[in-house]
Structures are given as C-alpha cells and as structure tokens.
C-alpha cells in the first residue's frame, strides 16, 4: 500500500568529535580549575598566598564533600 515509509524516529545526529575537542580541552580545563578553587585551593595545595579563598568557600567545601580540616 505505502511506498514511502518514514521511520518513527530519526537517529539524532552526533556532533563530530573534532568539533567538540577544542571546547572540551580549553573549557574543560578552566571549569576544572574553578572546581579546584572551590574544593582544594589553600588546603592541600596553594596557587595563591594566604588562606582567604579557603576560608571564604570553607562551608561549601565541607558540604560538597571535599576533605578539609
């Protein structure tokens, strides 16, 4: 009866890895740096002098599950 059959669902098109990679590397690095500042800066290691970052995000660090004091 029917000559043309449309599939109920078309497979979603993947984004080429080449297109994702630059974002994943640069964006991923910056985002992980942000997580590092909330989670570990001025605790285990220190990029900035002093304890201000550590003290400022202290409650979040504990409650988000990072080791602290």
């Amino acid at each position: 009866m029917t000559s043309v059959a449309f599939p109920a669902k078309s497979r979603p098109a993947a984004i080429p890895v080449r297109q994702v990679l630059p974002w994943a590397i640069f964006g991923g690095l910056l985002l992980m740096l942000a997580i590092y500042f909330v989670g570990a800066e001025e605790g285990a290691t220190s990029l900035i002098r002093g304890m201000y970052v550590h003290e400022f995000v202290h409650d979040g660090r504990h409650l988000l599950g990072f080791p602290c004091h």
Partner: protein
Amino acid sequence: MVGNLLLRGMLAGVLAGLICFCFLKAFGEPSVDRAIAFEAQMDDAKAKASMPGMDMPAAAPDEELVSRPVQAGLGLFTGVVVYSAAFGGLFALVFALAYGRMGALEARSVSALLAGMGFIAVYVLPSLKYPANPPSVGEPETIGMRTALYFAMIALSLASMIGASMLHRRLLARLGAWDAAVVAGAAYLVVVTVVALLLPSVNEVPAQFPAVVLWQFRIASLGAQLLMWTTIGLVFGRLAQQHLMAGTPRLGAAIRA
C-alpha cells in the same frame, strides 16, 4: 553549537547551584554550626586540662579571616554556585560527545541518563569510601593525603564508568540494550569495589563527636548533590533539546532519514 551547549550547561548549573544553596542553608549549615561548637568545646577542654587553675578564655579565638556569617552566607553561595556552574559546563561537554552516540535516545533522555551516571560515579561511590566530613573531623596534617585520595577515588570511579559505557556498546549487538546495561553496571560496581578496597581508609572522626551531627551533615551533603545532578540533568536536557531541535526542521530530518 558546542559553545552554545556549554553555555546552556553552565546556565543549568547556576540554577542548580541556587537550589543547592537554599537546601544547604536550611539543612547543611545547622550541622556545620554544631560541629564548630563541638570543636570549640574540645579546644576549651584541652586548654583547661593543660592549664589547671587558670580561668582564661581558652585558646583565644584565632584571628578570623572570614567571619562565620560570611562563610555561611556569601561564601557558601559563591562556593556552591561556582562548583555547580562548573559541573554544568563539564556536563554539557560530556553530553556533546555522548549525544547521537547512545542509540536513538533524544537529548532529554541522554541528559537524564548521563546525570544519573555522573551522580553515581562522581559523588555516590567516592563518598561511600571517603564520606563528607563536617569541620573538626580530620587532622590538618593529613589534608594533602586525604585530598589526593579523594580525587584519585573520583578519577578511578569516573574512569570505570567510562569503561563500563564502552563495554555496554560492545555488548549491545549480542545482548540487547537492557542486558548489556545490566552487565556493564555490574562490571562498574565490581571494579569500583575493588578500587575502594585497595585504597587506604581514612577515619579521623573524634571518638566523642556526636553521631547525629555526623549523620545530618552527611545526609545534607548527599541531598545537595542529588539536587544538583537532578536539576542539571533535567534542566540541561530541556535546554539542549530546544537548541538541537531548532537546528533541524522536522521536515528536513524526515527527508534525510
């Protein structure tokens, strides 16, 4: 396209962060305050024991760099929102790689599934081995080792999850989607259990620390993470679906298929 998804991921993350902040303010801060009170009590007792007869305010409260209200307010807000926004962004990047490579799943489903997997791999399993601890639990001298172990546990758990996903793809043709997922899930659990058994344990909870405070603190931490991953998974899924659908008119997609 990827940049736009990244932005949408961070937006979902900010929203999740706002929700988490409200949750932690209500259910997390009380146990943090109680833990700090316990810490002060212990310091007091220690000072009294070392200097009998002298009635001085023990351990003169060390110079506070950031006051408690700021730590529990703006500090908590900043920490949680930055953390959540960053995870939203990373989540979007993983989504960009997974979308279209997970069978015929649409964007919302891919997002929800990835969020569930991320929650388990990044928070639940690592925190079963190294649970969240309130202030006054933990020796300052071991912070380096504890941080390294915690991050190692997250990395290994995440790597195992990625390995399990690859196993799932491999088994797909032979077992079908459901059974392949069961086998891959079991493989993930076995590998992570072995990893957790091999890594050294850390228990620095003081003997007199109130068990109820510890429980409330950890359950608040778990609740916040559950809220964050759920919000990112559902909100980003919707935002991504909008974006990806806007690019492909329905007619065009039907003709190409």
